[in-house]
């Protein structure tokens, strides 16, 4: 039966390879977004690590950067700075905005920092300077390259024009990038004199977690989090937001894969009705015919899964070269998920052809 299943499936080669290709693409859909997010996870929190801060102080209840609006006063920052174990405190202003280049708009975290302060600004500069003045901006290398922006070029941030004076590295990910401007320029765009976050360095020998707890104990208007916790929260927010998208992609992948497989098996069985009828007349039992369908489902899906996994792996090596700021990582969980999905697809897709087989009346063969 294995041999018959295999030969029958291969008999119309184009259809078979279209089927396998379709399944592969569907499964690829399930794998890729996930792989992209996992691959980019480290990039998502790159600024938090690069900033050099041991503790992030934010408005009470704010526990990350992404999609957050935080406002604390300079006084709150100074109070935190006076806590035992705090070496320095630097203010930043933060919002999510659009950087307009000549070519396109790029979604970006906009960070206003004070070049005279120890923290908040970019730590890894690959061209130009970190010491920006008023009317100047620092953007990420990956954005500069993809948008064709060079040092000295002008870009628009939050509606104002800035000159690019420095390029950072590693601050672009699939969701956005990070752009720095002078804190006074940022403040001018915004009423009031509050700041968004205070970035604190801790003196050697002090535990950031304990210091952060002490800050919160002294001022209940702020939330102070050690870098690790702040980064974890940031990752979690992005994950939570993309969970639904991943879910939808998975569902779409599952449905497409199911439709393609079911259709391939169905048409293959339909085309062979007469021959399966002959087989039945000659004494094949239904289980013999079911095994043909099962083998065909198994073959299509194993090949489809293999192609999908291979493609993700291939994209993982090629994508970062083509689209800067992206990375793909094939996880064990992803592979398991795809194989489980393939199995589910196989079972459901085989139902209709199996039913077709069971219903076949072998007497029909003689009436053609």
């Amino acid at each position, binding site marked *: 039966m294995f041999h018959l299943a295999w030969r029958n499936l291969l*008999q119309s080669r184009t259809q078979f390879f279209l089927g396998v290709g379709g399944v592969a693409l569907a499964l690829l859909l399930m794998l890729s977004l996930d792989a992209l997010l996992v691959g980019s996870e480290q990039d998502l929190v790159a600024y938090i690590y690069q900033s050099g801060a041991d503790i992030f102080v934010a408005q009470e209840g704010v526990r990350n950067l992404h999609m957050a609006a935080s406002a604390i006063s300079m006084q709150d920052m100074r109070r935190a700075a006076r806590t035992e174990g705090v070496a320095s405190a630097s203010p930043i202003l933060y919002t999510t905005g659009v950087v307009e280049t000549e070519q396109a708009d790029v979604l970006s975290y906009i960070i206003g920092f004070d070049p005279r302060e120890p923290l908040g600004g970019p730590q890894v500069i690959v061209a130009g300077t970190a010491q920006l003045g008023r009317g100047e901006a620092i953007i990420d290398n990956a954005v500069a390259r993809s948008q064709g922006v060079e040092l000295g070029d002008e870009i628009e941030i939050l509606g104002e024009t800035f000159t690019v004076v420095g390029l950072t590295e590693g601050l672009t990910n699939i969701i956005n990038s990070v752009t720095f401007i002078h804190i006074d320029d940022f403040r001018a765009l915004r009423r009031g004199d509050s700041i968004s976050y205070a970035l604190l360095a801790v003196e050697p020998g002090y535990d950031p977690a304990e210091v952060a707890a002490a800050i919160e104990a002294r001022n209940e208007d702020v939330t102070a989090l050690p870098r690790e916790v702040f980064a974890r929260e940031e990752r979690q927010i992005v994950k939570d937001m993309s969970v639904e998208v991943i879910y939808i992609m998975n569902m779409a992948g599952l449905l497409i894969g199911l439709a393609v497989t079911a259709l391939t098996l169905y048409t293959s069985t339909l085309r062979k009705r007469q021959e399966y009828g002959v087989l039945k007349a000659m004494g094949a039992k239904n289980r013999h015919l079911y095994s043909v369908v099962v083998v065909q489902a198994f073959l299509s899906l194993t090949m489809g899964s293999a192609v999908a996994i291979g493609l993700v792996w291939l994209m993982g090596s090629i994508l970062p070269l083509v689209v800067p700021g992206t990375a793909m990582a094939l996880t064990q969980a992803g592979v398991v998920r795809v194989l489980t999905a393939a199995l589910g697809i196989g079972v459901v897709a085989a139902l209709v052809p199996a039913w077709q087989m069971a219903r076949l009346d072998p007497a029909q063969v*003689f009436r053609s």
Partner: protein
Amino acid sequence: MEKLCALCVSVVKMEEWMEPVMVVEHVTRRFGSGETEVVAVRDVSLAVEPGEIVLIMGPSGSGKTTLLLMLGGLLRPSEGRIRIGEDDLTELDERRLPEVRLRRIGFIFQDFNLFSSLSALDNVALVVQLTGLSRRAARRRARQLLEELGMGHRLNFLPEKLSGGEKQRVAIARALVNEPDIILADEPTANLDSRRGHETMRLLRRIAKEGMRSVIIVSHDERIKDIADRVLWLEDGSFKNEVEMATDPVCGMSVDRERAPAQVVYDGRTLYFCAPGCRDEFLANPKQFL
């Protein structure tokens, strides 16, 4: 004279010895009910001996295929019984019928019905595998049989690469490979030219006589008649005593003299035709057909 009679007696004794392989008792098959009821087969009885070749003839719609389906365990009679050896097909559970078909009956179809994706060898081997044998063993057995049937040089050919006669030989091998008691053939020569048709029939005869297998053929091909041991005429679902038949000189079909749609007296002989068309063709150039 005495010698000959002694031979007669021994033949009679042998026949008495043999149980029929297949016994059909008062089988009727109806389709539909009420106003639309069709009686496709009506009160048919028949016993077939081992090694016997029975030819069932009859016009289109007379119930030949319906009868064959019932004999093959593919259709249940409305009334009556069909026995193959000790198995009563009419009483067997639906799930046991495939096993009977697999081991006791071989089918040969009008359009060969080979598995188009499989080689000649695998076509035959697959049917052996259904009995539970491994692919290797099945292929060995299939190869041997195909070689016996003169198909050794075509083992790995796909059906599409075989001629009609070769396809029919593969189909016969497939019907034969599980050593059935009975071979059922529906119009086995319909898709063959007359030479191949004759070869096929001679092969079936050899198979019947050498292996003591019964062969039941359903056909309206007049040319088969001479190799059959017995010819039965089915009409409106039941066997008629052999009516006086004539052969249409144009198309070769057999025609019931009483019902022939056209006839012509030519050169002092009465000729019967299956249709006025054949008669006209004959009259246009009689010499060609005599």
